[in-house]
């Protein structure tokens, strides 16, 4: 971005041109004064009124335009600088945004992969757990058992 720099350059050229204008305007005004000062009759006054007075006014108008150009250049410089600063900040934010986007996409990709893995890994678990539960219930079944009766006859007395 060289917007402000180019406007500064253009402003410098305008300043230089207006400086030349001012210098030359003062010089030609002095020259007109010198010419009219060489004679003091009515023709001189008439010449001054008819020709030089309007030129002096035009020089004043030129001076005003020079000031206006300078002021407008200053305003353009300020605005261009502001715009360039905002654009620079915007570019920096855009760069940070792209980095954030990369982070988001990476996190999303990881989360998606992990969630998919979880869903795949847990898909068969309920059925397998039910199968184990069924086997546990079946294994837990007991038809029952009672010990055979103990011998209570007289043979024990023979010991």
């Amino acid at each position, binding site marked *: 971005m060289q917007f402000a720099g180019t*406007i500064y350059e253009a402003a410098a050229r305008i300043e230089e041109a207006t400086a030349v204008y001012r210098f030359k305007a003062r010089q030609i005004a002095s020259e007109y004064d010198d010419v009219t000062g060489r004679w003091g009759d009515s023709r001189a006054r008439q*010449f001054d009124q008819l020709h030089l007075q309007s030129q002096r006014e035009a020089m004043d108008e030129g001076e005003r*335009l020079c000031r206006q150009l300078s002021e407008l250049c200053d305003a353009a410089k300020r605005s261009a600088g502001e715009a360039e600063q*905002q654009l620079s900040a915007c570019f920096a934010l855009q760069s940070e*945004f792209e980095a954030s*986007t990369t982070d988001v996409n990476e996190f999303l990709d990881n989360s998606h992969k992990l969630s998919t893995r*979880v869903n795949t890994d847990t898909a068969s678990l309920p059925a397998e757990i039910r199968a*184990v539960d069924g086997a546990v219930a079946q294994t837990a079944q007991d038809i029952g058992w009672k*010990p055979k009766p103990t011998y209570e*006859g007289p043979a024990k007395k023979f010991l």
Partner: protein
Amino acid sequence: MPTDPRQLLHILEDLQHFIGDWTRTLGSVVGDAGGAVEMVRNVANDLSAATRAQQDAANDMVQRAAQMRSQAAQALQTAQAALVRAQQAVAQAQQSLQRAQQMQQEWEAKRSSAQNELDAASTELRAAMQTAQAAARDLASAREKMHAPQAALSGARGSLASANAALAAAAAAPGYTDQNGQYHPPNTGPQRAAVGYAQAAVARAQAEVAAAQAVIDVAQGRMDMAQQWVGLTQARVESAQARVKMCEGKIAQAASLIAQAQSLLNAALTARDTAEQAVARANAAMSAAAVATQQAAEAKARADAAAIAAAHVSNAAQALASASHAFQGLSGSQGEAAARALGEVAKILEQLLRFDSSTSL
């Protein structure tokens, strides 16, 4: 006013020189200023285009950020659902494992009970077998003791038979007729006495045999009872052994099921850990998306501010163009006025010169 023509011409030449210089200066200044203003206008156009492009980019960023937020929210929802699923699997696997362990404990208790019964029955079986062995020994001894009475009985019976035979022989012998003509049978008295003696011996031997037989019967009775004890106790042992064997089989099955349940629990726990990681990643994505949203909003604000500033530059450029145009017009009129002034001065000088030459003539 000087009247010397050379001085007047000199003044006119100087004035011509300055006005010419002034006119050139005006042209140069107008050209330079106009070129510079054109530069500013070009820059303003470029800047406006750049800010518009950046505004478009910022709007795109805002849209993408919203999309990322939506995707992150969806990913979080998916991950949380996966986590719930994994947690349920963990709970179910834990319950299954507990049931299998409880079942194993129950079978271990049953095996313990059966083992106790087996131990007691085995102990009693040993006692019963000892008793049976003792009874067998007694029976054998009693049977041994039967041999002598039986032999005595056999001998007595043999003697009796001999005595009876002797008696029969004696009785078969011809008698004699005495002098009186009275027949007299043979004398069998001694044989009869022998028979009676033999019969008494047989009776004694039979009594001894009967006594021995009674001892045998008692021993046989004890033997039978001992064998009954052994038999019943043997049945107890076999029943307890079968029970212990069955319990051990069940315990082995329970161990296998516990291993399976543990394996399923491990898988569920791993899945739960993975799901927690997925949730963490989704939350991180949410955070990053929130940051991106903030960045996009700020970028949009910056781009809008840049566009406003660029509009100010454009306005300034337009105003500069207007001022430059006005300056150009002013310079043109100044040049023309200077030229007219120069013509007027030349005319005045020409009059002066003509007046001087007429007076000098």
